[in-house]
């Protein structure tokens, strides 16, 4: 029989990931592995993992990685890329890492136009620590630190990182995608490939925000979480290319 699909070499063959059912972290890392494989980049790939569920990848992925202090992934990536310019350096960060504790590092790396790629996984909640409120938590959405749900008066509004970064002059490419449907998952893969290609071409800072789910901390099953993405998350975080210097 002809083999038409196999697991990417980017993921270890001998272990099963420990992510919750319906979690999209494994989907996104699979896409990254596929892109690296198709672009023949494993020999050059250095992944900077954020803190939180992102960090769980370290034991499932098969290529070089470093765990950064919480929020500092873009600064760590800056250090690697500047001192090892031939490496393909990308961060893999959640919403707390990229948009809360690491906001300064994220904005500043983007503003410098660092030639790195950022994979920003936004599920609107803190996962590993147990469902606390994130900068991207939706209005009214319950969190373990906002038991009555997010309110404007107390917590302000969800942060739209793509649109915020789009205020800067330097970034080369900013796109928001999701993995809620097969079509969107394919678009995410293309976006990741583009972010990597930009780096190879020296275009500067590229960021792909991927809207995902956290069924466990959202208190839903996997299908319910998909519906929630469709109905709520994407209403707040519309998909699409926000900046593409090649088109602009």
């Amino acid at each position, binding site marked *: 029989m002809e083999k038409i699909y196999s697991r990417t*070499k*980017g993921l*270890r063959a*001998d272990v099963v990931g420990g992510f919750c059912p319906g979690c999209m972290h494994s989907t996104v890392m699979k896409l990254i592995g596929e892109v*690296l*494989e198709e672009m023949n*980049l*494993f*020999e*050059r*790939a*250095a992944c*900077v993992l954020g803190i939180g569920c992102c960090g769980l990848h*370290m*034991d499932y992925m*098969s*290529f*070089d*990685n*470093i*765990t*950064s*202090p919480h929020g*500092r992934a873009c*600064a*760590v*990536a*800056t*250090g*690697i*890329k*500047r*001192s*090892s310019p*031939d*490496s*393909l350096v990308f961060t893999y960060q959640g919403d707390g890492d990229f948009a809360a504790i690491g906001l*300064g*590092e994220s*904005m*500043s790396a983007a503003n410098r136009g660092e030639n790195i790629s950022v994979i920003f996984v936004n599920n609107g909640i803190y996962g590993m620590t147990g469902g606390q409120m994130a900068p991207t938590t939706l209005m009214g959405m319950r969190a373990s630190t906002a038991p009555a749900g997010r309110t404007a008066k107390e917590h302000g509004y969800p942060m739209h990182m793509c649109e915020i970064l789009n205020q800067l002059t330097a970034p080369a490419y900013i796109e928001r995608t999701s993995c809620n449907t097969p079509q969107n998952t394919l678009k995410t893969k293309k976006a990741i490939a583009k972010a990597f290609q930009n780096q190879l071409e020296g275009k500067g800072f590229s960021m792909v925000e991927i809207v995902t789910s956290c069924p466990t901390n959202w208190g839903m099953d996997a299908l319910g979480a998909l519906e929630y993405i469709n109905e709520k998350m994407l209403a707040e975080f519309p998909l699409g290319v926000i900046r593409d210097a090649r088109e602009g």
Partner: protein
Amino acid sequence: MARIFMKGCEAIAESAVRAGCRFFAGYPITPQNEIPEYLSRRMPEVGGVFVQGESEIASVSMVYGAASAGCRSMTSSSSPGIALKSEGVSYCASARVPMVYANISRGGPGVGSIQPAQMDYLQATKASGNGGFEMMVFAPASVQEAADMTYKAFDYADRDRNPVLILCDGVIGTLMEPVELPEMKTSEEVAAIKNSKKPWSCIGHGSDYATRAWIQPGQWSTVTQQQENEKAAALYESWRKNDARAEEYLTEDAEVVITAYGISARVSKTVVDILRARGKKIGLIRPITVHPFPVQSFERLDYSRVKAVLDVEMAIPALMAQDVEKAVGDRAPIHTCLCSGGNIMKKERVLAAAEKLFELVK
């Protein structure tokens, strides 16, 4: 080699370049601004990288990244900024990533005073971040030593795969003196150092889990975490045996022994000379490594002669005195001569304190 008249901060910066440092990230804070300013000019000349980070935290994280890519890397700051760097330093220590950083220290706590002080002793030697890690900490007492120690610090960092700290008070950092700079490593030597780190540096190794580079500042497994802690503890223990350094000056027949580091030691040495000229039996122990603390130097003292030890520090309360007390035990009383707030230790104060001790022990 020719003497150059140079500021402590600049000598540190130039020595780092000569030692093969090719990445520096830092953030402005007085009194260490000459280090980043110097390297912003110097790094491009040698194909190195200078980045002004958006904060001390970002800067040390950049250094963590660059060092993890195998590049000799450095950051610097002054006391409150060093506190911010504790996160990244702890990560480097945990992941066993070699890096060098300098604290051109000023008054504290808090924003403190921008003038020189030695208030960061305990932070530097006991807890430079979370998690009980240790580092070798060098304390220069001259611009020449600041240059030489920085140069050597990179070798120690690579040998141990651990951070190394240059604890340099604001006087030595700001002072200009003639200095003979260490030899410039050739670009071949610099490349060879980087290549030697390739097996573990996070720059891309393919897709084989067994041979990939994995910079791991923590462990999921409690078993392996304990193993890592045990390995680190063995390393720290080896320093206490092999790497503690001190200058012992006229201690053999001393009845009063001053102990001090950095600029305080230099002032104290002058006082020793003044009192020796008057026939007083006085000596000095100057820790060159404040961590590991040179306990051996205190062991070598002849306590049948030593009547008192005088701890001289630009810190209130006394900080190094805690280590001195541990080293001396109940074999001799320990007195202190202190100043802080950015005031520089005065010869007259130390002289008066030492003379008073001779009165007391008569």
